[in-house]
């Protein structure tokens, strides 16, 4: 909330982009969470495939719809920034295309997990897809360096000082932390709900099987 209010009302407008620079305060956190969410999905998928960890399996299934929603918002807000700044809603440049592929990977994961009659097989197929799709993450990150794209290169990196003014950087950090915490909270709530649903399904199955055992057949 602090980051959003700061970005909307108190941070200065950019000398070149004007008011549209404020879109950055929501676009950048959603772009970061789109990639970070997929990384989390891949880690959970790896844990589920290698160690057959049931919680990792559940988390992988629950991360993908949230990640897909956040990737769609990233593309939508980027488009809303592109129209007044570039003069177009969409260009097929490397960064935009690779993020669009990320959205397709999320959607593919959601569909594949639910496409099998046997949920275990569905989740396993989804995990393999998630691990294969990880190759897209470095492509997203380095697309602006490897190819000549309309999208600008990164302004903030782990090494070197940021090339963005502090008056714009601080609200961006606040919105990034805030939306990251919200993403984690939403995923954790969904995982909690999935655990309750699994326990409920187990109880119902146990009740049905105990009734079948007590009722005489024929």
């Amino acid at each position, binding site marked *: 909330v602090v980051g959003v209010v700061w970005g909307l009302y108190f941070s200065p407008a950019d000398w070149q982009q004007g008011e549209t620079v404020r879109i950055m305060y929501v676009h950048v956190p959603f772009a970061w969470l789109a990639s970070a969410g997929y990384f989390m999905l891949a880690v959970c998928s790896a844990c589920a495939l290698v160690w057959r960890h049931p919680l990792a399996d559940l988390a992988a299934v629950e991360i993908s719809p949230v990640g897909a929603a956040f990737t769609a918002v990233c593309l939508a807000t980027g488009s*809303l920034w592109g129209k007044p700044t570039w003069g177009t809603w969409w260009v097929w440049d490397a960064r935009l295309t690779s993020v669009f592929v990320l959205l397709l990977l999320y959607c593919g994961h959601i569909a594949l997990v639910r496409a099998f009659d046997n949920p275990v097989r569905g989740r396993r197929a989804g995990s393999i897809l998630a691990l294969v799709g990880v190759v897209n993450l470095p492509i997203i990150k380095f697309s602006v360096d490897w190819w000549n794209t309309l999208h600008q290169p990164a302004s903030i990196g782990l090494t070197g000082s940021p090339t963005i003014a502090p008056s714009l950087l601080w609200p961006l950090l606040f919105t990034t932390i805030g939306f990251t915490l919200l993403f984690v909270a939403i995923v954790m709530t969904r995982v909690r709900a999935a655990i309750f649903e699994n326990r409920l399904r187990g109880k119902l199955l146990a009740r049905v099987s105990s009734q079948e055992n007590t009722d005489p057949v024929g």
Partner: protein
Amino acid sequence: MTGTIYVNAAYVIAIGVTVISAVLANVRCGRAERRLAAADTQRDKR
């Protein structure tokens, strides 16, 4: 002025999707918790 429309639209989409996701997750969790509690109560009655 035109820029403001794009900014407002971006914030409405971003905050709207986040809030809807959070509400849906909480509703689903609350419903599952209530159904589980009801199943436990039913079992205890027996």
